[in-house]
């Protein structure tokens, strides 16, 4: 099993470790998932996400290449703006979801899922035009710092001032690549650095009174509250961005020539066969991935849960499901079948919990 540069730090902190994406990763630390979740919502949590792939795409045709691989538009984006998008396959399904930051008109920085990075790199390599270079930064670690106190922590612990950095914006400082974004719905950052600095940076952050380390279990409950999809569960090679309710990543749909466009454009026109929705469990119990969703009478099957768990913030179970679009309206009463028992639930808007990401700064007059 592979280890991130922070593996020793997790073991020292007595994390419960398990395999994830081929790496031995911290699932939770001693305080446990509930405490870690709430700590991130109230203070600041640090996450080792070094298993994720960091890739630079550079060359005169880099932008056109990315607009071939993804349904998004990058040409009109300003430099240092990050965008959530997906890699598409020929069938209109998704190979991965990722964040791509435009560094310049010819240089982009992508962060992809750990479990998908080899597949993604192969796919990019296969479609790579002449003169475009792919660099996989295997020598870089990635730490996410998330929570309402993240900006202050970054200033106190590392001397980095991000007061003027907006949400989904990128900057470099002291050889750190700093992106103001994350997977929790909180204000926060993903900080990329050379692997040999990671341990020292982790410990500097850890030494701050407002910081706790957060494992993958709380990372999952935090993202579930935000309704963010998890690749391999809520989205995969068979689901399209329209089915995933991610049409917004296409903006005004200026890009129509990406790989897999035929199905996607057809689904925009004619509605998809299924739709990703939020599900709130209103009865007693917790429903997990794979639980079937039925109508209010418990007779007609409407779909299947692709994620499910307990929301520490709402103190009730929530999930994501793909269901028949005719039953996808928020408030629709449904049943979720768990071990043969139907639990009352309803279709819900996502996010389940309001995001607290950084508000846009006012432009100087």
């Amino acid at each position, binding site marked *: 099993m592979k280890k991130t540069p922070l593996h020793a730090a997790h073991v020292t902190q007595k994390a419960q470790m398990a395999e994830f994406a081929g790496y031995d990763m911290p699932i*939770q630390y001693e305080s446990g*998932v*509930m405490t870690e979740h709430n700590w991130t919502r109230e203070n600041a949590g640090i996450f080792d996400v070094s298993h994720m792939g960091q890739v630079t795409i550079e060359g005169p045709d880099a932008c056109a290449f990315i607009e071939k691989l993804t349904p998004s538009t990058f040409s009109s984006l300003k430099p240092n703006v990050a965008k959530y998008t997906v890699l598409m396959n020929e069938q209109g399904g998704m190979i991965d979801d990722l964040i791509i930051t435009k560094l310049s008109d010819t240089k982009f920085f992508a962060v992809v899922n750990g479990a998908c990075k080899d597949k993604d790199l192969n796919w990019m390599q296969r479609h790579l035009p002449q003169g475009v270079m792919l660099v996989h930064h295997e020598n870089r670690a990635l730490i996410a710092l998330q929570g309402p106190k993240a900006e202050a922590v970054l200033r106190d612990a590392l001397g980095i001032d991000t007061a003027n950095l907006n949400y989904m914006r990128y900057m470099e400082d002291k050889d750190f690549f700093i992106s103001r974004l994350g997977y929790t719905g909180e204000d926060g950052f993903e900080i990329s650095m050379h692997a040999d600095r990671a341990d020292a940076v982790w410990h500097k952050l850890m030494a701050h009174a407002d910081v706790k380390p957060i494992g993958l279990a709380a990372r*999952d409950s935090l993202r579930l509250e935000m309704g963010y999809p998890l690749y391999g569960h809520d989205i995969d090679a068979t689901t399209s961005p329209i089915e995933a309710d991610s049409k917004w990543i296409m903006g005004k749909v200026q890009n129509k020539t990406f790989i897999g466009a035929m199905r996607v454009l057809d689904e925009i026109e004619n509605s998809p066969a299924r739709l990703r929705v939020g599900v709130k469990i209103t009865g*007693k*119990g917790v429903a*997990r991935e794979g639980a079937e969703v039925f109508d209010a009478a418990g007779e007609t099957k409407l779909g299947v849960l692709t994620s499910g768990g*307990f929301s520490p913030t709402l103190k009730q*179970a929530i999930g994501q499901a793909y269901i028949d679009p005719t039953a996808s309206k928020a408030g629709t009463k449904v049943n979720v079948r768990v071990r043969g028992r139907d639990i009352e639930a309803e279709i819900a808007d996502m996010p389940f919990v309001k995001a607290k990401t950084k508000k846009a700064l006012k432009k100087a007059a």
Partner: protein
Amino acid sequence: MSNVKYSKDHEWLKIEGDTAWVGITTYARHALGDLVFLELPEVGRQVAKGDDFAVVESVKAASEIYTPVTGEIVEVNETLQDDLDGLKEDIDTGWIVKVKMSNDNEAADLMDKAAYDTFVESLD
């Protein structure tokens, strides 16, 4: 003094005549993490040794609880559903179900406290 036995699946049993009070040990409780929901069986259900009879949900996952003895569930501890902190190694209040045993030998085969403690130490 009660006769208390332990299983390798980390259940404790308090034996009173032919009835076993079944709960989970501190070790199991710790391994389960933050509990959010307990699903209890119906009274009257017949269970065989090794069957799951209840499910505890944590934030992370669902875990089944197995009965170390065969018999009929004669009582369930519904108070635990509203007080998950009560689910612990307390042989008076922490029980999940009471099972009327149909095979005395099964309980006799389980570990006593000293043997269970040695077993747990061997796991770490």
